[in-house]
């Protein structure tokens, strides 16, 4: 009897101890996209944070950027999502609209309220992640795209990169044609290629330059200004294999091969962060100065001078995590993002923090003036609860025209019908 009671007591004590220990240990999972430069510094931040707070462990998981959207959706729909994640805002917007993410815990990260937090950042930073007066994400980066140029290839084609770079989309076709090398019909060196399939970021501004829009002002009607859309569709047809054969979505993404300086791509559309990747992938090319950045082109008959849309990656916290986990998650996010200058120098991503933007070193960074000027003439990427879906429809429309040689008006009618159906569907 005494033995049994003693054993029972020991078992109970162990159980109690385990539950106490379990309650004190917080394990956070953090999903993000691949970026070798960012992985190095964030792994260090994790070590430092865990050293400061031994009761917290953080597991960082990386996935291909193109797969993150699907993976996150699957995880959330199975109620098995990570505690912390980041996605481009056009994908994150739906999560906020459906209350799947938690508002920022201002006090946990040292702010009084939403206004206090917003005052530390560039005006308008939190517009897209604010709902009912609450902020739902902290910006990891705000990015826009401009045109990177390989000067050597320009000279090889008899062009002066400083003056002959394309300022209009019409010039882009002509310049790219001069830069393109082919073996018969097969392109061996592209002059430029588009940033497929990010059509909301890079293609929709082309339509807006011509006075077109994806939705009417009241958001109830799909496609505004057919002529603008058809002109852009025709531009893509001219670009593709049924036109001047200058590029196609089926070739390797331009930004992935630009850094190698292998004489296979002269220009690509990408962000400030590309410089960090050039520096790591090909230090010789980076140091040579044989690359430069020029503004996003505009159509000759443009009615609006619109640059490539900018988008943000916001760090968000899963609303289904416990209150305690949420608090620690925000603390950890704030700790990471407090290293704004290191993110800028090492990863070449810009947090729109006022202290960073006011730093005199900021504008001295290579071609920062080009990116900032482009950003000043652009706007945040189109956001809608079904934005992801609309982008897929636009992708199919462009591909139909460019690759399947569908008439532009037919492709536009199909696009309009599909988007309108989503707008009309209430559920």
């Amino acid at each position, binding site marked *: 009897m005494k033995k049994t009671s003693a054993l029972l007591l020991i078992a109970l004590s162990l159980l109690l101890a385990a539950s106490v220990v379990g309650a004190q240990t917080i394990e956070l999972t953090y999903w993000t996209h691949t970026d070798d430069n960012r992985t190095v510094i964030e792994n260090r931040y994790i070590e430092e944070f865990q050293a400061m707070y031994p009761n917290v462990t953080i597991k960082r998981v990386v996935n291909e950027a193109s797969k993150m959207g699907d993976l996150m959706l699957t995880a959330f729909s199975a109620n098995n999502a990570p505690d912390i994640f980041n996605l481009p805002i056009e994908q994150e917007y739906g999560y906020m609209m459906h209350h799947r993410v938690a508002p920022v815990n201002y006090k946990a990260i040292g702010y009084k309220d939403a206004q206090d937090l917003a005052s530390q950042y560039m005006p308008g930073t939190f517009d897209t992640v604010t709902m009912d007066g609450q902020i739902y994400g902290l910006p990891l980066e705000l990015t826009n795209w401009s045109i990177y140029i390989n000067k050597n290839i320009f000279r090889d084609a008899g062009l002066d990169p400083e003056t002959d770079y394309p300022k209009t989309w019409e010039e882009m076709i002509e310049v790219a044609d001069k830069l393109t090398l082919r073996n018969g019909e097969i392109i061996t060196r592209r002059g430029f290629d588009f940033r497929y399939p990010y059509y909301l970021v890079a293609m929709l501004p082309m339509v807006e330059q011509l006075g077109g829009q994806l939705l009417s002002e009241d958001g109830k009607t799909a496609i505004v200004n057919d002529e603008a859309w058809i002109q852009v569709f025709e531009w893509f047809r001219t670009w593709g294999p049924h036109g001047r054969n200058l590029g196609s979505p089926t070739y390797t993404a331009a930004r992935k091969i630009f850094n190698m300086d292998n004489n296979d791509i002269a220009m690509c559309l990408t962000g400030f962060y590309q410089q960090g990747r050039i520096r790591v992938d090909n230090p010789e090319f980076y140091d040579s100065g044989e690359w430069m950045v020029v503004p996003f082109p505009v159509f000759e008959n443009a009615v609006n001078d619109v640059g490539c849309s900018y988008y943000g990656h916001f760090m968000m916290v899963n609303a289904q995590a416990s209150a305690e986990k949420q608090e620690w998650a925000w603390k950890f996010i704030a700790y990471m993002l407090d290293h704004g200058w290191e993110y800028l120098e090492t990863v070449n991503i810009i947090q729109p923090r006022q202290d960073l933007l006011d730093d005199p070193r900021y504008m001295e960074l290579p071609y920062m003036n080009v990116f900032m000027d482009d950003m000043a003439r652009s706007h945040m990427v189109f956001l809608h609860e079904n934005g992801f879906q609309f982008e897929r429809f636009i992708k199919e429309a462009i591909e139909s025209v460019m*690759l399947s040689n569908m008439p532009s008006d037919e492709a536009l009618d199909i696009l309009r019908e599909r988007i309108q159906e989503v707008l009309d569907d209430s559920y």
Partner: protein
Amino acid sequence: MHRKRGFSMEKKKARWGWVFVTPSLILFAAFSFYPIINAFYESFFNRNLLSLRPPRFVGWDNYIYLFGSKDFWLSVQNTLIFTLGTFLPLLVFSLVLAVFIMSIKRFRRFFQMAFYSPAVLSSVVAALIWLLIFDPRGLANQGLNALMGTAGVNYNWLSTTGMLRLSTIVVYFWKYIGYFTVIFVSGIGSIPDTLREAALIDGANRWTLFWYVTLPLLKPTTMLVSIMAMIQCLKTFSTQYMFTNAGAPTRPINVITLNIYNTAIKDYRIGRATAMSILLFIVMFAFTWLQLKVSRTEEVSHM
């Protein structure tokens, strides 16, 4: 007394039979039967995959929508084109290759292995390999240019409608031809040699032997291969998914399974996606039933 003992022996055997079969029945019920029932139930609701709101019952609305949807009928058309374009060559050529393998005396195992090896690759890996081959600078263009005596012609394997559809058929054909060849090889191997010898003694040549002896006796195997090939083709997904992710246009190869994926994962419409899955299941079930019915009307015996 003997009858009683015999009966209890049967009962014992039956009990043990249930013991061995029950685990797989439970697994089948949990991972196959339950998801089908659940999908059927979901198809009567309107649910956003991301939303925490409870799903809204809509009855047959999802099915009515699909039957009136151009997008859905386009994916049905694409699936039929792919299935007919793949299934028939698979059936015919796997039989031809099996006859070839059985007709040779040396290197039989080597050929079986060579033809079967693509089948062990995952569909994703197979698609990735062929994406490199179909790249404008890849082997497909180089090979076809060499064959046709042309230089620098881009056959747009991943761009134009016709070539893109052909590319997906080629990938599937390459991956599964060996698999069905091996099934036919075992089918041919099961035909008694005595029948062949008797036919040869009676004056049959190789063609007559194949057409009037081997082929009729292969009916059960042919039925098995045709059912399996048809089902495989109807549920094709990875190739089309990988190709469209790599920049190929979606419209020409938007088969039903890809439409289901996009509807669920990209559009968040899980109810509509499950309705499509149920329709696909019904079609596959119908084809299988039809083929089994046809095969039963002409049963084959080696006696």
